[in-house]
């Protein structure tokens, strides 16, 4: 065994792979070579010390609290951005419609309505066009918008919804001054990580499922979701004593879960309220009878339009092939919506847009009959 060959054996020694024969060879060489004897001794010392180093180290409670809070804040920020984008795209769609309406409005007379009416066969293309206009970035010119898009006559009441995005960081940037807890002893530090698991198991499952169902695609929920998100973002910073605060690093997740749960519950309640409102046998504020070609495809278009106007549309097929669509919509948006829907009408004498006397959310009944 040469001195150069020792290195390989020393690595095997460190990895616990030395055979008995190799161990004897190592010892024998060490007895005759002082330099290698020193290397062997140092290797054994290093190995013993490494074995005293734990592969897992308790994280000081203040540091635990800090990274957990950073994650929650990042999650809240993402939700805000998502809602901003959603509301922004609805607003942008309205801008497109209004813009086209302004550009085309002067060229239309009542007798030319039939030319502007979309042939039923192009309805899918028209829906696609509306979507494309939404997805492009918003300041579209007339050239980019095809004649398939419904014309909206602006009367000043049809403004894009005011988007109030709470961009201020409500969660305090750092309550770091409060987190001055000294690193806690190992055994008490071990208690903290268990808390988030228990809290999560107990309440977050419920909160998650309620939250997910409340976040499903319903146009009516968006403004409420935004408001709730703003409330959620204003998570109270723990105000207890520094030491107690650090100890609550695990339980602050439970606080968050409770907030999420109550927010999610109220969102679900609001959504249920809205659905109930649509389904309830309210007497509609007004009714519009339309003659259309292809009731089914026109129903789809009306649904898309309702989405664009932040309204809900409940379609009920009737035996004779016609359809009743109950639309819940904000009274201010109702006239523009009905104007848009009227563009789908194929009758010789177009009905007039009915007045909407009420304020707030109103129900409109659209009756779609197949053109004879």
């Amino acid at each position: 065994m040469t001195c150069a060959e020792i290195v390989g054996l020393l690595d095997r020694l460190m990895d616990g792979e030395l055979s008995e024969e190799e161990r004897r060879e190592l010892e024998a060489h060490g007895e005759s070579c002082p330099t290698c004897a020193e290397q062997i001794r140092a290797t054994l010392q290093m190995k013993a010390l490494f074995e005293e180093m734990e592969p897992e180290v308790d994280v000081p409670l203040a540091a635990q609290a800090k990274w957990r809070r950073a994650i929650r804040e990042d999650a809240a920020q993402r939700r805000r951005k998502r809602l901003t984008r959603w509301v922004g795209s609805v607003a942008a769609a309205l801008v497109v419609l209004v813009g086209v309406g302004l550009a085309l409005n002067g060229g239309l007379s009542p007798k030319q309505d039939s030319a502007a009416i979309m042939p039923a066969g192009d309805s899918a293309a028209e829906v696609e066009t509306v979507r494309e206009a939404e997805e492009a970035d918003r300041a579209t010119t007339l050239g980019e918008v095809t004649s398939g898009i419904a014309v909206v006559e602006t009367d000043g009441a049809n403004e894009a919804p005011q988007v109030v995005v709470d961009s201020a960081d409500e969660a305090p940037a750092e309550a770091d001054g409060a987190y001055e807890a000294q690193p806690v002893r190992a055994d008490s530090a071990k208690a903290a990580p268990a808390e988030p698991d228990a809290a999560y198991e107990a309440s977050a499952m419920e909160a998650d499922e309620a939250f997910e169902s409340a976040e499903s695609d319903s146009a009516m929920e968006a403004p409420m979701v935004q408001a709730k998100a703003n409330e959620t973002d204003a998570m109270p910073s723990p105000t207890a004593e520094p030491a107690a605060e650090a100890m609550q690093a695990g339980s602050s997740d439970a606080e968050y879960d409770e907030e999420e749960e109550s927010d999610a519950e109220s969102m679900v309640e609001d959504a249920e309220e809205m659905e109930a409102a649509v389904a309830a046998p309210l007497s509609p504020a007004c009714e519009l009878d339309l003659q259309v070609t292809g009731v089914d495809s026109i129903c789809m278009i009306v649904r898309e339009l309702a989405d664009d106007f932040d309204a809900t549309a409940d379609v009920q097929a009737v035996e004779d092939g016609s359809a009743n669509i109950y639309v819940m919509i904000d009274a201010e948006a109702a006239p523009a919506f009905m104007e848009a829907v009227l563009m789908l009408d194929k009758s010789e004498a177009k009905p007039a847009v009915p007045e909407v006397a009420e304020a707030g959310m109103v129900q409109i009944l659209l009756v779609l009959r197949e053109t004879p």
Partner: protein
Amino acid sequence: MEESRLIQRASDGDAAAFNSLMGMHERRMYAVALRMCGNPEDAQDCLQEAMLRVWRAVSGFKAQSSFGTWVYRITMNTCLDELRKRKNRPNTSLDGLVDAGWSPADEDDTPERHALRGEVRASLQGFIRELPEDMRAAIVLRDIQGYAYDEIADILGTNVGTIKSRISRGREKLREKIASRSELFDRYRV
């Protein structure tokens, strides 16, 4: 709740699920950060940064690889990034490392033995900190964290041969430093 379900929820943006999931990994991540950075303050900064990186990337995690390996890859990369940024900063004191991450002392410890142990441990941690970063990463993962060679290669994004070479050279450097302070280390091992 099982890990895969927590990962799924975390991928969907569930911060509570993420925090619960990472609660199972944070002590190992911190151990790696502590030995790489060489002091608790920097290690805690690295831990936070690593957590945020994992959070932002979790929706891209592919189930075919091990989540743990993936997390430690991100942790190690975070530490290496931080070390490169702080290259010119003077080394901080080793005091914070004397107790953090070491197995507790025997009950019949004498004050002299206790002091000797502290000095020996601080010296070794200092030697590790003096290693070039790539050697340090390989040594920490192998000799302290106990990962297999192929796992280390996976975490560090290289091949087993390179890892074995780094570990062998790193150990050689540590041996030389220990041998240069043999009077201290020999006393501890009596």
